[in-house]
């Protein structure tokens, strides 16, 4: 306790912390830490959804715009959804914002973490279709720079990989604890290889494709960020093809990294975090949050978070039920507690 004034015969002003006995402290292993980051992102998304722009027709038009270029079977529900929101703008957007807020709080609150993670998967899948038009995957508009394959689908992927399931076998990395190493690696490879593919689509490898996309994010941003983006756009200039090839090569390396020995895998994961950071800062302008009107943080932080979920863990051979040195508790007891 940190007494400011000793309580004697007069009123004492006291602030205190840390009186919980160590035995009752909740454990925080690597998976729980990543869950909390995911919760924070959901919470931020919920707060962003309360912005004034979301209660205007601009939000509705943004949703309707994602139908463009998609097959009719995808586009029609998006258009229907946009029309529905247009008629009940305030109520529906308030509900959307509150749902995302509750998802964040629910994941952070241990007794509701499973329910919230499951709900977040359903919500993310719905938003991916009705709100993002499948991230432009089928319309040819997808690019790793603009958040392909749709930031929200990465939320769902993270919720699955960070699901608090207990497995008896030691996991080589956190994401493998829920679905197993083979499935987790396959999901990683599919995601990053798809990003590499999108980087090389005709629209993205056009001479001014990359620089134009970066320059297009400048509007409304703070001056310092505009300067950063202008610098990046002018550096790339009309070398869109070269930039796309370099980016695709990096993405392929990242995709393959998790299949390689731990030391190389770590290097690939660091590369993934660096690429995600560059994309988030230069191409996504921090999700456009500083310009107002952003609905989420975009894909950069989620890709980085995903990379952390694949960081190799050191297993402890002497204790079969112990997952890693990063885990503060055996997997079985962890799952029991999280349940």
């Amino acid at each position, binding site marked *: 306790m*940190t007494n400011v004034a000793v309580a004697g015969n007069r009123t*004492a002003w006291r602030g205190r*912390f*840390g009186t919980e006995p160590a035995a009752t402290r909740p454990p925080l292993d690597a998976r729980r830490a990543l869950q909390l980051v995911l919760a924070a992102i959901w919470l931020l998304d919920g*707060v962003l959804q309360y*912005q004034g722009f979301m209660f205007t027709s601009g939000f509705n038009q943004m949703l309707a715009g994602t139908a463009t270029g998609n097959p009719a079977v995808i586009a029609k529900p998006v258009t229907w959804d946009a029309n529905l929101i247009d008629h009940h703008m305030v109520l529906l957007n308030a509900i959307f914002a509150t749902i995302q807020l509750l998802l964040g709080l629910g994941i*952070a609150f241990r007794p509701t973490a499973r329910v919230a993670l499951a709900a977040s998967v359903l919500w993310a899948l719905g938003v991916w279709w009705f709100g993002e038009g499948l991230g432009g995957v089928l319309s040819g508009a997808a690019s790793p720079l603009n958040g392909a394959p749709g930031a929200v689908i990465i939320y769902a992927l993270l919720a699955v990989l960070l699901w608090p399931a207990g497995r008896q076998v030691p996991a080589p990395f956190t994401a493998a604890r829920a679905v197993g190493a083979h499935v987790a690696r396959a999901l990683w490879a599919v995601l990053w290889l798809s990003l590499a593919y999108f980087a090389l689509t005709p629209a993205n490898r056009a001479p001014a494709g990359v620089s134009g996309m970066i320059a297009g994010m400048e509007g409304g941003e703070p001056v310092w960020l505009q300067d950063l983006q202008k610098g990046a756009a002018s550096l790339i200039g009309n070398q869109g093809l070269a930039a796309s090839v370099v980016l695709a090569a990096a993405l392929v390396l990242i995709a393959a990294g998790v299949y390689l020995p731990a030391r190389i895998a770590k290097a690939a994961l660091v590369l993934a975090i660096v690429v995600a950071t560059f994309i988030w800062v230069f191409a996504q302008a921090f999700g456009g949050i500083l310009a107002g009107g952003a609905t989420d943080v975009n894909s950069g932080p989620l890709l980085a978070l995903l990379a952390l979920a694949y960081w190799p863990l050191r297993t402890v051979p002497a204790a079969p039920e112990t997952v890693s040195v990063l885990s503060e508790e055996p997997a079985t007891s962890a799952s029991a507690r999280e349940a």
Partner: protein
Amino acid sequence: MTPDWILDIFAAIMLVVAAVSAARLVAARPWQRGAVVTDTDVSHLLMGIAMAGMLASGLATLPNDAWIAVFAVLMAWFGYRVARDYQASGARALAAGHCAPHLVHSAAMVYMFAAQAAPSAGGGGMGGMGGMSGMSTLHVPTLAFLFALVLIGYTIWDLDQLSGLRRGLAVAVAGAASPALVGASAGPLVAGAASEPGADGSLAADSPAGPGGTGHDRTAGGGRSGLVTVLDSPGAVVGCRIAMGVTMALMLILML
């Protein structure tokens, strides 16, 4: 524009936070000798009133400059406390202590009042923002974003730690049903509260005498109502901090 009724809901939540904090202060009986008053309750009370006034102009109380002065004092106070904690416990004090989040809260309040780019439309210089839907914006929006991120981080951390406590709320609820049980279970925590310190990674309970809540027992002669027990629980004060963190982050984002 964000509808007024949504902002009114958050303003109401802030008034609840202020009321809970005021009740905790009253329950501590500061007029009695030996009473213990926590700085966090004072902080929550002031912030609850100020934020309600920012969200709903009809609830504005003091001019912006007055609030800046109030929260600058709080910021200096918690800054001093954080420095002390840091000396005692190192960087863990920033993550585990209660002073660091309150320092951030105070700094964010100073920033919000000081960095409004547009004068309030309907507040008449009384601190309100004319309803945020009338929307003042903030200078240096990057700082607002950073504040929002840190506040959300602390909120999530608080929720995790709160829900991980095995006792806290359970003790409070049990105590409401059986004061004798609380008296029995809370005893060791009095001794714990007198021990030094603190920053061991556990939840900042902010209760006057312990997570089980015993500070008021000493002034009340051991008898306590269920309401006091609930007010004195970690859930009450941390819940207030969570509500405040979410609302403050919302305000910062709305004012970008």
